[in-house]
């Protein structure tokens, strides 16, 4: 189908229409079949070299010229000399739009050199840079936004070179934040992947685990006067544990959903500090009772804050709008499953040991102290970072 172009005036039309047509700029109706040049692309390759990441980033001169004027003398050509003189500007522009690693401490990027490469569609500037990145981390968090502000069809092509092979990802304005695994299975976007993410998050969310642990440690004991006494029936123990875990679950599901759906936006730092504080309190309560009885209420109240902590993780996965609800459900299921696994592992031991002296007099206080200490360290770290 072919274009149609409207004239600016036509005799015989009423004045209003003529005026509006005259005022409008002539517009071609674009043919639906796009016979198109290549759209804007940039290419980034990352490899690990010891404790560092090495990057090589190809950026089209055409695209760079749009955002920075590379033709210093206005001659209509971009020469190597002109490109070289703009090295700092190019590096600043590009590296500011690439984040490797999660906030608040992403890897800092250092330009090593600037070169040129000729692709089939023209010349590209090549930035070689290094990034200090913990080699132990398996998941690489990437935020990519080069040229998106001027060209919404621009795409960034990432290639991760790992010993097992190559992983690739495509970044666009609607998929600007992604996480890739250096090894093993790449996190996908199906429900199974989000369940896995949920489990992974609780198992590596040491602050969440320690909080739960602190609450559960005295689970098979009952506070009477100022001492812990063993509870006789397993049913009661189970009931207590179930109450605590359920309260925690309900609370963090609530706030996780609120945060992910964008209803509430608590400050990340506040959330992280409060989580650390909650762990201290829960642990301290085991040593010197701060709140009596209803541990499940404590679990609920602090669970609300822990939920916001999970939300940060989910937000980082760069979900597309249609995926959110499903991902949320799956992620939550994963968190619950992960929690359940921990609880089921602990529960038998807690019950069997309940009337052992070492449990009451050693494990509980010393364990709780240790938890409190670790959490205090976290709190200090998060407060003063």
């Amino acid at each position: 189908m072919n274009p149609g172009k409207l004239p600016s005036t036509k005799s015989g039309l009423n004045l209003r229409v003529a005026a509006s047509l005259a005022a409008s700029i002539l517009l071609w109706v674009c043919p639906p079949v796009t016979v198109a040049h290549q759209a804007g692309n940039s290419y980034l390759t990352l490899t690990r070299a010891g404790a560092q990441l090495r990057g090589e980033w190809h950026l089209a001169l055409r695209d760079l010229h749009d955002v920075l004027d590379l033709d210093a003398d206005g001659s209509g050509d971009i020469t190597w000399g002109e490109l070289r003189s703009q090295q700092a500007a190019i590096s600043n522009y590009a590296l500011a739009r690439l984040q490797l690693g999660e906030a608040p401490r992403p890897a800092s990027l250092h330009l090593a050199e600037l070169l040129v490469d000729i692709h089939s569609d023209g010349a590209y500037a090549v930035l070689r840079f290094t990034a200090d990145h913990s080699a132990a981390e398996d998941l690489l968090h990437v935020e990519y936004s080069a040229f998106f502000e001027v060209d919404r069809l621009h795409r960034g092509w990432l290639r991760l070179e790992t010993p097992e092979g190559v992983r690739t990802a495509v970044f666009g304005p609607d998929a600007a934040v992604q996480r890739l695994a250096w090894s093993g299975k790449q996190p996908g976007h199906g429900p199974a992947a989000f369940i896995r993410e949920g489990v992974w998050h609780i198992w590596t969310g040491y602050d969440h685990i320690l909080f739960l642990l602190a609450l559960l440690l005295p689970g098979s004991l009952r506070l009477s006067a100022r001492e812990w006494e063993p509870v006789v029936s397993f049913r009661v123990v189970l009931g207590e544990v179930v109450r605590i875990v359920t309260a925690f679950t309900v609370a963090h599901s609530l706030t996780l959903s609120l945060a992910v759906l964008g209803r509430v936006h608590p400050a990340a730092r506040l959330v992280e500090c409060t989580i650390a504080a909650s762990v201290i309190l829960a642990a301290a309560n085991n040593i010197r009772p701060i709140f009596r009885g209803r541990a499940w209420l404590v679990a609920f109240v602090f669970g609300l804050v822990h939920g916001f902590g999970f939300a940060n993780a989910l937000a980082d996965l760069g979900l597309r709008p249609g995926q959110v609800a499903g991902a949320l459900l799956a992620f939550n299921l994963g968190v619950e499953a992960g929690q359940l696994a921990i609880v089921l592992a602990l529960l038998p031991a807690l019950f069997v040991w309940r009337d052992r002296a070492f449990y009451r007099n050693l494990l509980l206080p010393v364990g709780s102290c240790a938890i409190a200490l670790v959490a205090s360290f976290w709190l200090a770290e998060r407060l003063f970072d």
Partner: protein
Amino acid sequence: MNPSLFPSSAAWSCLLLDCALLFNAPAAAAPFVPRDDSEILARVPDRRDPLAVGLRERHVALSANPGNWTLASDLAQRYLQLHRASGDPRHLGRAQSVLAPWWEASAPVPILVQRATLKQSLHDFPGALRDLHAALQQAPDDGQAWLTKATILTVCGDYEQARRCCLALARLASDVVVVTASASVAALTGQAERSCEVLRQALARNGSAPAGEKVWAQTVLAEACARLGQTEEAERHFREALALGERDLYLLGAFADFLLDAGRPREAAQWLRSETGVEGLLLRLALAESRQTPPPETLARNVRRLQEWFLQAQRRGDSIHHREQARFALHLLRQPGEALQLAAANWKVQREPADVRILLEAALAAGQPKAAADAVHFVRTNQLQDRCIERLVAALTAEEAQ
């Protein structure tokens, strides 16, 4: 952004093995440090070029007044015109980014129409129609909106609605435009001879119409004649259109297709020799080269280029090139199964005669006549007059009967 209709990944299993191709392009030619400061790396539009100056000034004005939609609309318009002339999707991306603050929400009528045009170019036809509907509710006399709507509906094969839009267009546009729009629909619904007649008369009447309008009319006329098998007439109108001097990528592609169908690949290759930068035309060039004996040595390079490009488009999430991909798979890669999947996916989005044709060809080549049943039904219901398509339908019916 784009409703994405992918064929199953299995269909691309062969091409996915070539994933390395995608990155071999940058990696194989190693980056280097040029020896000389004066070595020229790229040519860019002259900074003093009035077009470039105009764009820069408007960008500055817009960033000073980010909420001013008239400025944004003006700037987007320029990018759309640039895209129209060059086919470079970067201009579409820029237009989209300029309109970004008004992309999701309700917007003033000119911006709605521009949004619709952008979405049309990205093959988001439902989105474009929604925007046009909103625009026409506010401004029922917006000729451009009716015209765009008519065009989209014709492409989607919704001829009844398209006709209504053409009726609404009657008072709002020039003679040539109105006639061409209506004739486009009529030529596809059993009135091809009459449409040709009417178009010729309109062209004769309006000798002083703008070249752009005449090119459109001539192209529609030429394609209708070609479909009717009136090869000489078709060629005459194609050449008249080309002689008007407007660089029209659609026209070039349509003429190349005509020459290919007429068994004149050498001429087609001649016309498209320098069009290796525009991939839709590169496809036709490669097709033309593949039909020459012996095929020229540039064929392998062009096929590889197309392969990279389609793979990249797929990974981007673009679904706008399924027709071209299907043609590529069928005629150049000789993979009828993949071609059929692509053509079927394409069929869900658009229904021009070319879309019908590739689906029928692929179904025939893959030995699956049932896959094209819907298209056959479409042809019969609308009385689409096209010699090639009629032959294909006959062949498919015969095969199904076996």
